Each structure stands twice: as C-alpha cells, then as structure tokens.
C-alpha cells in the first residue's frame, strides 16, 4: 500500500463467508504484483489436491506502481491451472487495478466454495457474498449488465465475471474484466466456477493525497511524455498488435491451419490493415493509460428474416486473429469477429480455443475422430461449424468435446495426434513460429506463455544464432519480467520503464529502492515461482515438443528438434544453478 510498510491482504472464504484483513509486513520484500501473489499462492495452495478442489486459492494482486503512473494498469491473478496442473498466472487491464487501489487492498485471496452460485461485492468498508443463483448460465455480457444494474458505484467500479465455460469448468475458461479485457490464459474462469463464484464487483472511491507532489509530478510527466510524444508506443495505438499479421506472414512465421503452414494464403484479408479499413470503429484504453491500444471492431449480423440486422462490437488483437483466424484457416475479418464474439460470451481463452480447434480439425481430417464424435464436419475455414464446435466445448456436449475442453494435450492423449497437438507443457501455443527463442521461451517460461520472456522478440533481435546467448537472453528476460510484473507495468510499455525510470518513479512515492534491489526482487520472485512449479510436480526435463514445430519452417527457417532439446537442457542446468545459489 502506497506510503505504508505493509501489504494489505483481503481474505475471503466462500464457504464460511468469513472475511479478514491482514497487514503483511513480510510481503514488502516482494514489492507487489506477481511477487506478492506468488508468495500468497505458495502459502495457500494444496499441491496434493486437484486444481479445482474447493480449498485451492485464487489470488489477485496489484503492483507497487498500480494506478499511480501511466501504463501501470494490470492486475495479476494466480492460481493452480486446471489446464496444466501447475503454476497459473494471468494478467488483465481494464479498471480493476485502479478500483482495488482505491478500495484499499493490495491483494485478495479467495478460498472455499460457496454453497450456491454467488458473487462478491468489495468496497473500502464492506465485503459481501451475494446470491447469484438467478445469474448462473448467463454469458459474460449479460452478467456484466446485471451486476452493473444491481450494484452502485458506476464510474469507479470494475466487474469481473465468468461465462458458461467457467461454470462448466472448461480448463481454459477465461474471466472477463470490464467487457473488453480478460484474465485469458490457463483457466482462471474454471477455478472461479469451481467455487460457485460468478462475478466480483469492486468499487474504489478513496482519495489518496500524494505526499511529495513536486517530485512525483516531475517523474509522472517525464513518463507520460515518453509514452505520448515518442514513437515507442504509437504503433500500439495506430494499428495495434494486428500489425503483426503482415510481417509474420511475409516472413513465414504465422502459424496457419494447425501449423501445417507458416504462411496464410489469405493473410491480406485478416491483416491489421484489413481490420482497420473494414471493421475498426473505436479505440479504448485501460484506466491510467494514455495509449489506447484496445481496438474494437464491428461486424453486421442478420438476427431475423426481413433484413433485420444488428451491429456487433468486439475487441480484437493479434493473438485472437492468429488463433481464431490463420490457425483455423478463417479468411475474412467479419468471420473472425464472429468467432471472437462467441468465445467472449461463453468465456473461453481465445488462444487455447483456436489451437484446440486446429488440432480437432486435423484429427478429423486424419480420421482419428469421426463425425459422430465431432457432431459437425470440422474443416479449416468453416466458420459456421466452428461456432457450433465452440459451443459444444463450452457445454462439454459429448466425450470428444469434454476432452477438447481439457486442452490439446489431454485430447491427444485420448485420440492420438500428439505430434500436431500444438502446446508447450500443456499450454496451447501463441501465434509466433519465429524460431528457437519462441520454443525455448514457451517450454521454459514459468507459465509456458510467450509473455513469460518474449522468446519471439529474442528471435527477432538476435543477429546471429548462438545457443548460450539465447539461453542467457531468455533467462534474463524472465527474471526482469518478474520484477516488472511486481509493479505491474503493461508489458507494451517495457521500453518506457527502464531501470532508471522505475527507480525514479518508486523513489518519488517513498520507496527507497536501488538497482541491485530490483534485481534481487526479480530473482526472489522467479525462485518463488520455481518452488511452486516444483511442488506441483513440474519438471522441465520432461517437456515434450510437438513434432510439427520441426516439420513446418519458421521465420528463422527449418528448426532442429535436437537443438531445441539441447537448449531446454542448457536452460534446465542454468535453473539448477540459480535455485541452488
């Protein structure tokens, strides 16, 4: 908590409805964000029990700089992932960080399972667990509307909620935050569902005076000007991350049709340019961000006969265009938006959903599964049948779709096709077939996401392939991001927040912190995550890579399986030295 020497943690037991608050001085050495959340997860998790056991915790935390400086907008959620069975970590923007900050909490730990469907309301004076029986079954949009209508605090409120996929405990169910942001990856939605927790509404209405306003404002202005007056972040506002489609497609790094191809023949129809010309209607920002990177696209839908149309608005970014576009062969921006809307309403991670559908389509093509199991003939590019399949997954329509609801790793355990089940350590791949950096970064990353260490970015910046340098770069970036995520900076702004800027920012609000201490915090957090992973049974040496990665050329050319495993082994030895030290 700003100007305090403790971390304020709100504990909520869904079963007993007991609420307590602790002021944890011992957590200050983790600074905030992912540091605090990792420690709280480690303290509260039950490694011997299922990820969806009611006694498992959900932890939310804001960072040491949340809502105080520009582009520090994220909240972290930590949990045991029902998808991977190990470390679950996910970030969301929107208004949640600001409202938690102004409600006066640094972190929330939620335990237990409510006896009936419930939602939680949190403000600075009161926490309540309320009846949500009438809301169970609602999609992410509807439940947002209902809570907005029922609960006061509009304008200073954040509402996070799950859809039917979370209720049905799909292993990669997401949590919708303020309509256009999400805790997307690794299945936080299923963990909320397992607790009968449909939504959380947070109202933050405190006012916190800044003590040394002159110093603070000087640093704030410098950061703000770098964000708004330089080119560092303008690309994120302009076309946004969908700009990636064109370069990745031209260079042979765009995963297409379950990575049977690295180039999409219809790439020009789903590029950032195509969306900007045809669908883009609005740009939005998380609270406290002057960039506005959230791109909202619109498509037209006939909802009744007689030319009855509605216009439907959904958010889009690169990962969604890859997963629900090129990866399943969808060749128009309108159709991609239609698929995004479907996963949004049902409350599923778009990336995992797309990759699962890619595997299912190839499994069907190769006759590993029949139409009796898939219920509709799955084919790359067939949007109408994918819309149905997404719904079948969310409701676990039959044994096949139940398997799909547990991810490609589980589905390929049952039906075969492991060689084209595109996951890293059970987490479905991100949209970058860029080279060894992406493979190592995803395999070794704490949550097996491209966001752990930006492996795709290392592939792009390395002038010459060198195994040692690659391993060192991924390792250094993973630790640095642990530190950045203790603040919690939006990673789009990582070039703005260099060490000097971070130190100046923290110093201006009373944290006397040095460069060495920031390094130590990053190390401490990474070690905590590694302890959690070990306790949950994860062994990097056991990771198996899908053969498809080595059959389809990447942006860096044809990749070698042996070199990939060698890199993982080198990283593993580095981790052994790190954790022993």
């Amino acid at each position: 908590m700003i100007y305090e020497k403790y971390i304020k943690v709100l504990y909520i037991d869904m079963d007993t409805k007991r609420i307590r608050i602790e002021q944890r001085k011992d957590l200050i050495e983790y600074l905030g964000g992912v540091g605090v959340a990792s420690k709280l997860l480690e303290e509260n998790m039950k490694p011997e029990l299922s990820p969806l056991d009611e006694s498992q915790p959900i932890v939310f935390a804001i960072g040491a700089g949340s809502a105080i400086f520009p582009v520090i907008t994220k909240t972290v959620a930590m949990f045991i992932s029902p998808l991977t069975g190990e470390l679950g970590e996910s970030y969301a923007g929107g208004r949640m960080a600001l409202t938690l900050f102004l409600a006066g909490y640094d972190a929330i730990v939620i335990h237990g399972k409510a006896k009936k469907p419930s939602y939680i309301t949190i403000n600075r004076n009161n926490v309540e667990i309320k009846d949500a029986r009438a809301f169970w079954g609602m999609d992410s949009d509807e439940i947002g509307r209902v809570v907005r209508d029922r609960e006061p605090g509009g304008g200073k409120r954040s509402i996070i909620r799950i859809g039917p996929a979370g209720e049905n405990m799909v292993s990669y169910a997401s949590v919708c935050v303020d309509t256009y942001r999400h805790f997307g990856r690794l299945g936080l939605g299923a963990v909320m569902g397992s607790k009968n927790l449909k939504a959380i509404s947070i109202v933050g209405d405190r006012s916190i005076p800044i003590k040394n306003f002159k110093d603070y404002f000087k640093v704030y202005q410098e950061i703000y000007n770098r964000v708004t007056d330089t080119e560092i972040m303008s690309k994120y506002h302009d076309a946004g991350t969908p700009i990636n489609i064109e370069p990745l497609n031209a260079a042979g790094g765009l995963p297409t049709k379950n990575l049977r191809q690295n180039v999409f023949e219809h790439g020009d129809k789903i590029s950032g340019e195509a969306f900007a010309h045809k669908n883009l209607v609005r740009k939005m920002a998380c609270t406290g961000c002057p960039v506005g990177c959230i791109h909202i696209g619109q498509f037209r839908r006939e909802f009744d006969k007689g030319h009855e149309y509605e216009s439907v608005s959904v958010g889009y970014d690169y990962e969604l265009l890859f997963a629900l576009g090129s990866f399943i062969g969808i060749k128009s921006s309108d159709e991609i938006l239609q698929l995004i809307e479907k996963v949004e309403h049902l409350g599923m991670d778009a990336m995992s959903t797309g990759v699962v559908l890619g595997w299912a389509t190839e499994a069907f093509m190769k006759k590993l599964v029949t139409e009796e199991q898939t219920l509709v003939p799955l084919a790359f590019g067939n949007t109408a049948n994918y819309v149905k399949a997404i719904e079948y997954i969310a409701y676990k329509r039959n044994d096949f779709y139940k398997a799909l609801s547990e991810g490609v790793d589980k589905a390929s355990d049952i039906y075969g096709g492991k060689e084209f089940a595109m996951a890293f350590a059970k987490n479905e791949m991100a949209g970058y077939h860029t080279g060894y950096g992406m493979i190592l970064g995803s395999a070794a990353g704490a949550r097996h996401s491209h966001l752990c260490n930006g492996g795709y970015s290392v592939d792009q910046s390395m002038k010459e392939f060198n195994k040692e340098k690659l391993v060192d770069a991924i390792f250094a970036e993973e630790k640095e991001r642990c530190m950045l995520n203790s603040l919690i900076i939006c990673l789009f702004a990582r070039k703005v927040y260099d060490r000097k800027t971070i130190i100046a920012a923290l110093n201006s609000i009373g944290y006397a912190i040095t460069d060495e201490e920031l390094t130590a915090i990053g190390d401490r957090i990474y070690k905590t995550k590694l302890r959690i992973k070990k306790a949950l049974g994860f062994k990097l040496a056991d990771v198996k890579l899908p053969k498809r990665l080595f059959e389809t050329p990447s942006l860096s050319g044809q990749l070698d399986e042996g070199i990939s495993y060698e890199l993982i082994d080198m990283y593993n030895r580095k981790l052994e030295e790190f954790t022993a030290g």
Partner: protein
Amino acid sequence: MRINVDVISWFTRFTGGKSRLELDLPPGTNAGAAVLVTGIPEDEIGFITVNGQKAEKEQLLAEGDSLKVYPLIIGG
C-alpha cells in the same frame, strides 16, 4: 538502377504518405541502404523482402528489383 519499394501503411508516416516509392540508386546498393533512402528509421525495420523473398540487409540489388519493408513484431 531503378528499384521499387512498397511499405505498409504504418511506414507511410516516414515516407511522406507514399506507400510505393520508385528509387534511382547506384549499382552495388544493398537492400538495407535502399530502404534507408525512403526515410524509414533503421530501428523500425523488422525485415525486408526482395521480389517476395526474405532478404538480408546486405543483399545486393539489381535493376527492377521490388522491395517490401515490414515493421518489427510487437507485443507483450
């Protein structure tokens, strides 16, 4: 020698709004140098294709070659 350079719309902010440029360059010019003539800053360039094939900046150009310039991949 005459070289055509196509840029995606993001880069038109550096090229005076033009998405296609025709350059007249001395023989022996390489792809990286040709792109810099357009005004696109070096640190903005992700990669270049020459006649549709990904090319190194050092690749020497020939009369009539078509270049396309792409930005760096961005994200978290």
